[in-house]
Structure formats: C-alpha cells, structure tokens
C-alpha cells in the first residue's frame, strides 16, 4: 500500500504527471510526512499549496538522500475549512512552509508555535498584515534590553531587520524579520509564460550572488518539462560554471570574515584572489557573476579551448595562493580567538532547523545534492561532500577552504573530460514546449546549499505554478540559533559566516 501514497521522481528528469500523484486525505498525508521526516535520510525540499478550482492543493517534495529519489505527496482540501493540524510540532523544519501557506491562503495550522508572516506577498490573505505590524517576540524584564538593527544597514547589503533581546552584551534571543525585498518573482515566472529568455533572466535575478545556481535550477527544470536531454559537453560547462561560482563566493566570504575581525592582511589577500576568479568568469561569458551563461537547451557562450586553458591557469594560481593565505589565517592566534567557539550550531539544531548546504555540512550533517541527487554531469562523477563537525565560525571558514579545493579538483576533472569529449553544445532554446499536466522538480547545489525549483503545467503545457526554495529559507533559523548566548558584538561575524540571502528568502 505504501507505494501508492506518493510518486517518485528523479532530480531534473522525467516529470510526474499531475494526475498520477495519489491524493491523500490530510491525516494520512500528515502521518506519512511525519514518519518520513522523522528519519534523517529524508528532508523536505519544498512544501507548498496552490489554488485549484475545488479548493487548495498541497504538494510536498521530500528528498530521499539514500536512494536519490524525490517523493511527491499530495493532498487536496476541498471542504473549505479554515484550519489543519500542523506538521511543525513533530518536524520543526516545516514551520516556515506552514507560515508561508498561512500567510498566502489564510489557512490556520493547529499546533504551530506562531504563524508569523514570512515575506508579505502582494496576494496575501490578510492585507492588513503589514511589515510595521510584525509581531515580535518580547521579553519583559528590567535587566533585558532590545537592540534593533536594520532594515537599513551600515554596509552595502540587503535590507532585513534583526531584533536582539540582550542581557548586557549577551544575546538571549534573535529574531530575524525579512520580507523587505519581495518582488513576487514566482508570479513573474508564470506570467513570463512561453518566454524562455525572460524566465532565464528572472531565474538569474532570484539571488544575485547565486545567478548560476538558480539559473541552472531553472534551465534543467525547463529541459525536464520539455523532455530535452542536454549533451554531455553542455552539462560539463554548466558544472564548471557552478563550481566557479562556488569558488568565487567562498573566497570572497573568507575575505569578509577576515574584515569582520579586522584582520587586514587576510582580507586584502582573499579579495585579490576572488577578483581573479570572477574575472575569469567574465572572460568566459562577459559577466563577473556568470549572468547569461546558463540558458535552457544550450549556451550562448560555449566553452572553448582558450577559455578552458585560462580557467585551468587561474585555478592553479588561485588554489595555491588561497591555501597559503588560509593556512596563515586559520593558524593566527588572534583570528582563532575570534572564530573558535563562536556561533556554534549543534548537529541536532541544524537538523531540526532543516539546515541545508554549507550550514548543515559545517556541523556534521551531510546535505549535498551533488552527491545525494546528482544532476547534470555530476551523475557521472563521484562527489564526496566536504564535512566539518564543530559547527562554529571556524568550521564554516574551514569548510570553505575544503570546498574550494574540492571544487578546483572537480573543475580540473571536468575540463579534462570536456577536452577529450565531443563538443556539441548548441544554442539556447527559448521556446521549449512543456509537457501538459506535469510536475517537475529540479534541485541544484548552489554555493549556499540546495536550490529547489518546482513547476506545474496545465492541460496545454502552460506554466501554472512555479515555486522556488532558496537555501536561505531554512538557514536563517540556524543563524538565529547560532547567536544565542553569544556576545552581540559577534553577531556580524556569525552572520557573515553563514552569508545568507535576503532576497532568496523574500523572492
């Protein structure tokens, strides 16, 4: 019987027929999810709700890290009731999805700790909910004080509000309030409809620092909906681009970590290296952040021998210098004094917050889509995720070093395969015909963690719903946990060590 409760699909391959997904009633749906998510090998990629003529349809995509499949569960709510039993009291990581559903459709969840707004979408259920009436958690005491930071920050960063409850210099609680950058990007996707170029541009703008990650998630989603199989050379190019992005951002973050503890030498050395990497991306596609590089069906900037050699040359130099610099940085006593034991997230906390990507791997939780649900050319490769166990700023810093070295190795391998293989990357195809009545799931491992795009088509093959989950959505919670009982002066350092996206959360 169990096999009938969900449909299994593979990452970015043949989509599931919407009609074939078994519809469960809510108690069964809930029970099934709770049993699955109680086990560590499963985690939720995306859980959302959308309107159907008879009511609301709930879709939940669960990743199985052991078999590499994605299970899709469905529930249709046609009774017009206003409340459901919450999942969050059993699996805390689901809290954010239920908050999002509540905000959009006004549905209550019994047993949910606090259904706060997530991102204030334009079509939210209660228009009276505005950003200035956000219900903050409060503590009444003579000795405690509140410190509010943002939404406008001192650096040139995105807007977001942080509310600390402190006892002197010690943080007891941090609440992160986002939603200042909501652009309704999911709706823009469905409105873009047939226009593949517009959708590609949108995907690259979901989070500016993850243009390749999101671009790739969208490109392979389009291809899987259209049944297009990319040639190996195109797959390799995409993987190289993704790893280049990872290296560039990780090195930039190392520089920023040094800057936050006022270690000037580490900062300037890493900044210089980051420039080398992103300038190579620019040499390849004309944009330092890889915008315009990933397109469905093909590429405007196919890899050439000249570019491949340039990448190898820069990579060799950057890797050597980066390892030297980080050897200095992570052995300097004054830096260690700041990084070690600062902002620790335990494995259990990461698990219950639903942390993904780097945030999870830094505390011993293996979550790497490249290994568990391989996509593109990673299917032909053996990826061994880098892992740290301590979960502090130091672990996140060290993990970046490990990942940069690993990515450099991957790129070298990929370039070698590419040089020996057939080069038949075509031009982008913007008018791919989508299969009707289908649901496709595409997951990629961006530098921050897993990026999940889900699309649904109607009977004519038009996009009816497009859902995006950025890794930041869950990881913000991990940050809030990391700064508890830390000094408030260490918050910027913890924040930078996660480097989460505000607009990835706000969409």
């Amino acid at each position, binding site marked *: 019987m169990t096999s009938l409760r969900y449909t299994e699909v593979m990452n970015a391959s043949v989509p599931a027929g919407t009609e074939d997904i078994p519809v469960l009633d809510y108690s069964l749906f809930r029970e099934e999810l709770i049993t699955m998510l109680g086990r560590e090998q499963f985690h939720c990629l995306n859980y959302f709700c959308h309107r159907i003529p008879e009511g609301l349809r709930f879709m939940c995509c669960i990743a199985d890290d052991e078999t590499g499949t994605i299970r899709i569960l469905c529930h249709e709510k046609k009774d017009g009731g206003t409340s459901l039993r919450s999942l969050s009291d059993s699996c805390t990581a689901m809290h954010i999805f239920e908050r999002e559903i509540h905000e959009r459709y006004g549905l209550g969840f019994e047993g949910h700790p606090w259904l706060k707004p997530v991102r204030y979408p334009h079509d939210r259920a209660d228009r009276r909910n505005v950003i200035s009436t956000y219900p903050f958690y409060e503590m009444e005491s003579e000795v405690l*004080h*509140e*410190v*509010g*930071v943002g939404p406008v920050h*001192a*650096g040139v960063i995105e807007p977001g509000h942080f509310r600390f409850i402190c006892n002197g*210099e010690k943080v007891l609680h941090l609440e992160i309030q986002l939603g200042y950058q909501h652009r309704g990007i999911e709706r823009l996707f469905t409105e873009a409809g047939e226009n593949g170029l517009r959708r590609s541009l949108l995907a690259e703008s979901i989070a500016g620092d993850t243009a390749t990650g999101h671009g790739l998630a969208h490109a392979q989603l389009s291809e899987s909906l259209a049944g297009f199989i990319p040639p190996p050379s195109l797959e390799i190019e995409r993987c190289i681009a993704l790893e280049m992005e990872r290296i560039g951002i990780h090195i930039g973050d190392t520089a920023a970590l*040094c800057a*936050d*503890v*006022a*270690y*000037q*030498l580490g*900062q*300037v050395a890493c900044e210089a290296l980051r420039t080398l990497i992103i300038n190579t991306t620019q040499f390849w596609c004309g944009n330092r952040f890889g915008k315009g590089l990933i397109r469905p069906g093909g590429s405007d900037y196919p890899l050439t021998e000249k570019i491949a050699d340039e990448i190898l040359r820069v990579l060799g130099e950057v890797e050597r210098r980066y390892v030297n610099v980080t050897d200095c940085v992570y052995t*300097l006593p*004054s*830096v260690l*004094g*700041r990084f070690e034991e*600062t902002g620790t997230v335990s494995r259990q906390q990461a698990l219950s917050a639903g942390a993904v990507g780097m945030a999870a791997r830094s505390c011993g939780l293996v979550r790497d889509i490249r290994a568990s649900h391989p996509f593109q050319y990673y299917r032909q490769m053996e990826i061994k995720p880098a892992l740290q166990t301590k979960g502090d700023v130091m672990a996140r810093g060290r993990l970046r070093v490990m990942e940069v070295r690993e990515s450099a190795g991957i790129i070298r391998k990929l370039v070698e395969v590419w040089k020996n293989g057939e080069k038949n990357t075509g031009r982008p195809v913007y008018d791919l015909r989508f299969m009707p009545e289908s649901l496709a799931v595409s997951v990629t491992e961006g530098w921050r963690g897993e990026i999940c795009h889900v699309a649904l088509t109607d009977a004519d093959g038009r996009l009816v719903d497009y859902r995006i989950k950025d890794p930041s959505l869950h990881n913000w919670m991990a940050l809030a946990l990391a700064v508890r009982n830390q*000094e*408030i*002066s*260490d*918050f*910027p*350092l913890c924040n930078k060590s996660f480097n989460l996206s505000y607009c990835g959360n706000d969409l």
Partner: protein
Amino acid sequence: MAGFLLILVAALFFPGVILRTKSIASGRKGPGIFQPLKDIAVMLRKGSVFSDTTGIIFRIAPSVALVSVIVAMLLLPFAQYKALISFEGDFIFFAYLLALGKFFMIIAALDTGSSFQGMGASREALYSMIVEPAFFVLMATFAMFTGYTSFSVIFNHFYITGNDYVFIYSVIGAYLFIQIAMIENSRLPVDDPKTHLELTMVHEVMILDHSGFDKALIHAGTYLKFAMYGSLIYNLIVPAGWNTPVKVLMFFIVQALFAVVIGITESFRARNKMNKNPKYILTLTSVALIAFMVILILTEKLI
C-alpha cells in the same frame, strides 16, 4: 610652549603615517599622508545634523572633548623646556582632563537615546575605567623614581638621576604608553576604527550621530591625543641633554616610529573578542605594577 607646538605639528602627519603603513603592509597604493587632514577640512566646512531627541549636552560634547585634549597638551614639556602649565601633581590633572572629555562624549552618546550609542558608551566607559590604573601606577613609578610629581620636572630629572635602571623604565614606560594610547584612541586590538558594523564598534558607534563640524572636532581630538602620547614617549626615551635641533628631529622620528608601530599592529592581527578586552587591558596595569614594585625595592621603601 615648544612641547605644545611640536605636538600640533606631529598631529598633522600622524594619522597619515598610520594609514600609509597599513596600505603598504597590505600591498595597496593607499591615500596620501595628508588625506585624514583633507577629510577634516571637508567636514569642517559642513554643517552638523542634530537629532530631535538630543539636547545641549550633545552639541557641546565634541567641543569639550577637543578643548580637554588641548588643555592637556599644555601640561606636556619638551625636553628641558618646561610646559606652559606645570605644578605639583599635574599628571593627575592631565588624566582627569582627558577623562572629562571622554565623560562628555559618553553622556552625549546617552543623550541620543539610541540603543547602539548606549552600548558603545558602556563599552567605552568600561575600557577607560580599567586602563586608568595602568596610567596612574606608571606615573607613580616615575614619581618615585625621580622624586617629583610634575611632568616637566619628572622628565627633566629622568635621565640625570644617575641611575642605571633608567633604560628599563624607558622601555616599560614606552610600551605602556603605546598600549594606553591605542586603547584611549580606540584602535586595534581593543576596537576597530575601520569597521562599518555598529554591533562590534566601541568608540565609533558612540559618535555615530555626530556629523560635519562636530565630527571634525572629534577626529582632530583623536589625532592630537596620539601625538600627545607620542610626546610622552619621546620624553621618556630621549635624554634631555642633547642639542635642540637634534632633539626636534628625534621628536619627529619617535612620533613617526610610534605611528608605524600602530600601523603594523593593525595590519597583522585580528581584534580581540569583546569579552577578552577587559583582561587584555588589565594586563597593562599588572605590567605597571611590576615596575612599581621594582622601584619600591630599589628606593628601599619596601624593605
């Protein structure tokens, strides 16, 4: 008078030398030596913006702070030339003049009613408080050593006590004055003047609301304070007997070296964790105490 004027001149290039040192150490071109002065000139030409919640304290604080530094400068001698103001126990007056300026900056920060500024003010008050004993114990050591309690006389007699231990005291004194100057002026490793992160700031967050003309006064005060401590160091390590042109040259060499030491310290280390700062500052007092105990033994006051 000579001491006062020399400090003024030294303050002109002091911040620029720190900046150049840091630029060179990090392999950057960096701004010119007089860039900090140009910045001050720009700010002096601007008006100030005052928040509605602030009162008279906020407006007068920067001026009080600057004036307190200038008056403190008048107490410092240059070699055998006596200071403009000099009396028995003037180093206590010196310390509390500086504390007065700081006190006004702290209550001005509280005047804004912002949680950031309150946080900065509490940190700054704590650090100033625990760095004070180091200064007093050190000055007491010199007073015991020379038998006088005024800057001018102490430094005049420092090298002519005929004591072989002068060198040790010069070194310990110079070390402590460098450290005290860096803490008083909110530099690494206690504070980071370059950071943009309000939550990690100490001094910078306290003066966050000051703008334009007032901000220029605060910066000018900082630069003068640096040169003032430089002058203290100079008086400790250069014997008073040389001829004047050599001493003036030495004065600027000492100031430049002091600035370079600060620049190098700031280039090659990270700043402290905030809760380690009090311990770090207290070690200065213990160094001063050791020097004090030694002088007690040497002058046979203890046994």
